[in-house]
């Protein structure tokens, strides 16, 4: 095969305590489409950031054309001919298409040459086999068109390695096929295309080689002809035995707490059907773009459902706003603690009472600080939040303790149905086990829990049943006694249909 352009040798990267990459190796050759697959959190995005100069590796070596190189920043990576394209393209909404394409071009001279630039832009767009008005402001482009702009930008800089991160996750089938055609064409022109995707069928269509990564490390690299979907899935999920959590016995009752039929949000997800029983833990599995969070947001009224029915305790309800959801006993613990979960500079005490301030109001609307403190202290003991006192800012706590404060906030509402979105993302193993126990306790006391998780061992240990989603569709529900990681992954990647699974 052709010569090697870029090599990663034993690259490690750690952020404070967590190791995002451990001795990762990768070799990219000119003219190949190199697919990279791995679970959520396997280290793909960190690897991209190392290659594009955003992060510097903690140890290891990057070689370009056989020479060891240090990428001092994004500019250096671009000069070396390495460009990346993201699921959400990096465009400048206020600039037009031509300006967007040539924004990082060098040696352009002092003056803008709009006519010349537009001609060059048209030529690039045509070379990609697309038609696009290059004088249009980028704010008016569709997602697919914005990606075309990004590819054209990379081409304008004589790209040698083009990294495409989940490029088709939000595209329509037709747009996705066009994008794959472009990726293939670029490879034929000698570019090394790194193609990251959860859609295994895409990989079989265009990739020349496939690398599987897991837990920040390299697992295998094979020519596409020597691998199968089953093999890839097995390698993606295979873990050391030590990482498994003990299976906790279920406490599900026969009473249905939440009944969801044909739930849909137009153009986002559709056909979601399930019964959630009191005392049950139902897990939602799936990969990036499966739209699980959107189901949760619909149930919590943040982005209300456009079709389908929701019944809570046998009564049909319509949920148009989070307030309504809370009034009927639904709470939602967000995956994004920083943005949607906690007020980081505020104290534990204030965060605990945030969703239920009404409970703490006394005469004249004054806040009962003493009662607030008592409740916060009670939760601190019950949830084992490790902190000297409840006055300190939540932002200073560890991830696991932050998660517990968030739980306290919602448990204080005494919900009947609790939706957890990635409850253990980014927290250490010990805290994970504690959070699992809390979820279990909640269910045992008669609550109904819905847990969205990308962590397969967690799903296996925690869930009484698993609902698997893929690209906005429900792929199946597997009872925990029948579930294996491979089965879930096969559904999540679309390698197995509903009938075979159940």
């Amino acid at each position, binding site marked *: 095969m052709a010569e090697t352009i870029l090599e990663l040798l034993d690259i490690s990267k750690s952020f404070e305590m967590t190791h995002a990459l451990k001795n990762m190796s990768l070799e990219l050759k000119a003219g190949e489409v190199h697919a990279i697959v791995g679970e959520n959190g396997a280290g793909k995005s960190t690897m991209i950031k190392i290659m594009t100069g955003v992060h510097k590796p903690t140890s290891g070596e990057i070689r370009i054309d056989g020479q060891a190189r240090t990428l001092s920043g994004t500019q250096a990576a*671009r000069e070396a001919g390495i460009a990346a394209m993201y699921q959400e393209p*990096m465009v*400048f909404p206020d600039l037009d298409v031509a300006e967007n394409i040539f*924004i990082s071009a060098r040696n352009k001279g002092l*003056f*803008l040459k709009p006519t010349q630039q537009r001609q060059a832009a048209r030529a690039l767009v045509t070379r990609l086999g697309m038609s696009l008005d290059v004088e249009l402001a980028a704010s008016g482009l569709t997602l697919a068109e914005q990606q075309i702009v990004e590819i054209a930008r990379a081409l304008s800089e004589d790209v040698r390695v083009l990294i495409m991160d989940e490029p088709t996750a*939000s595209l329509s089938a037709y747009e996705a096929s066009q994008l794959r055609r472009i990726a293939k064409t670029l490879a034929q022109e000698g570019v090394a295309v790194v193609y990251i995707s959860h859609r295994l069928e895409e990989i079989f269509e265009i990739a020349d080689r496939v690398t599987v990564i897991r837990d920040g490390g390299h697992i295998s690299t094979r020519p596409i002809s020597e691998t199968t979907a089953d093999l890839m899935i097995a390698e993606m999920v295979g873990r050391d035995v030590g990482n498994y959590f003990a299976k906790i016995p279920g406490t599900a009752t026969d009473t249905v707490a939440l009944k969801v039929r044909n739930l849909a949000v137009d153009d986002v997800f559709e056909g979601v059907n399930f019964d959630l029983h009191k005392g049950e833990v139902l897990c939602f599995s799936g990969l990036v773009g499966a739209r699980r969070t*959107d189901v949760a947001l619909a149930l919590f009224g943040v*982005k209300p459902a456009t079709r389908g029915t929701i019944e809570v305790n046998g009564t049909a309800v319509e949920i148009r706003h989070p307030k309504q959801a809370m009034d009927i006993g639904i709470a939602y613990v967000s995956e994004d603690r920083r943005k*949607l979960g906690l007020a980081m500079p505020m104290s534990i005490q204030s965060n605990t009472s945030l969703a239920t301030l009404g409970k703490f109001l006394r005469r004249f609307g004054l806040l009962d600080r003493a009662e607030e403190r008592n409740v916060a202290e009670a939760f601190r003991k019950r949830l084992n939040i490790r902190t000297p006192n409840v006055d300190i800012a939540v932002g200073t706590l560890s991830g696991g303790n932050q998660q517990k404060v968030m739980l306290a906030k919602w448990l204080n509402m005494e919900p009947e149905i609790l939706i957890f979105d990635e409850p253990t993302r980014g927290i250490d193993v010990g805290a994970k086990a504690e959070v699992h126990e809390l979820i279990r306790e909640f269910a045992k006391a008669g609550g109904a829990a819905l847990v969205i998780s990308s962590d397969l061992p967690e799903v296996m240990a925690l869930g009484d049943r698993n609902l698997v989603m893929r690209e906005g569709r429900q792929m199946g529900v597997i009872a925990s006694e029948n579930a294996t990681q491979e089965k879930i992954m096969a559904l999540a990647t679309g390698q197995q249909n509903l009938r075979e699974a159940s």
Partner: protein
Amino acid sequence: MTRMMEKLSPQTLRILALLAVLLVILLFFSLVIPNYLNGRLFNRISSSVAIMALIATAQTLVIITRNIDLSIGSILGFVAFATGSLVTNNPDLGPVPLVLYSITIGACFGAINGVLVAFVRVPSIIVTLGTMALFRSVLVEYSDAKSITTSNLPQWLVEFPNTVLFSIGQMQFRAAFVAAVIVVLIVHLALTRLNAARKLYAIGSNPEAAEMAGINIHKTVFVAFVLSGALAGLGGFMFLARFGTITVVAGLGFELKSVAASVVGGVNIFGGSGTVIGALIGAILVDVIETSLVRWQLVSEFWREAVLGALILLSVAADAVLMRRFISLRRKRPKSDPIPEKTSVLDGEAR
């Protein structure tokens, strides 16, 4: 009509919309104020706009990069005083060294802002809120409670702003106004024709993408602040020439006026878009309203500020409505794809 619309860029449309609003306001005041539209009105407004245009341009450069410069008024005040005292002590200095001196001091102050914002990475609103007070205090200390007076200034300097270069009817085109317009035009040409200027817009439009595109954000933002300071310094020179008497309160409140002029002139306060020609018209618009209100008998002194605020809001609203009209006229042509909604933070997994 519609075909002509298609050919014009959104920026040009915005300027047309602003001019339309300006025209309506002039017509309105000419109805309620007797003897309104005459040469004196033009002369009065063009004189004060000469200074405002410069600082609105300075502010626009910074706002485009998604920042703000609240120290402009203090820089202008300090430069006016410092230049005044330099020429008081050295009456033989000609215009070139004086202008260079003003611009250099302004640029130095701008560089202080720039370092703190771009390299120390303190939000610009905090940095310039601090330096606004700081630069003003430096002026108080430096001036030692003295003032610059017109009598100490060389004759050419005092006469410069009011020198009539040419007249059209009663309208006198005075040197200060013409000079300011020329500066605005130069900056406008630079912003629209220079490659480097695209970086300013790119950073304001999407800072993350700008970083990914290999643009040196820190350097570019720093340069924007230095240029802003330099233009404020030039404004200080104009201020000295026009008023002659400079005290420690020179330029007080100009920072907010410059923001008002920019925003009224269609500069997006969140960065990424806007023109200095727009800012110039914005400055004229604010000044016309301000000056005319003084002469409008119906509005008492106490209500003047309120009416000014209301009219500014009204003209911004009118401008926004007009822009939408223009754009919908342009959109009439068939377009295959709808505009995608920007994905919100709530899109969890979609990211």
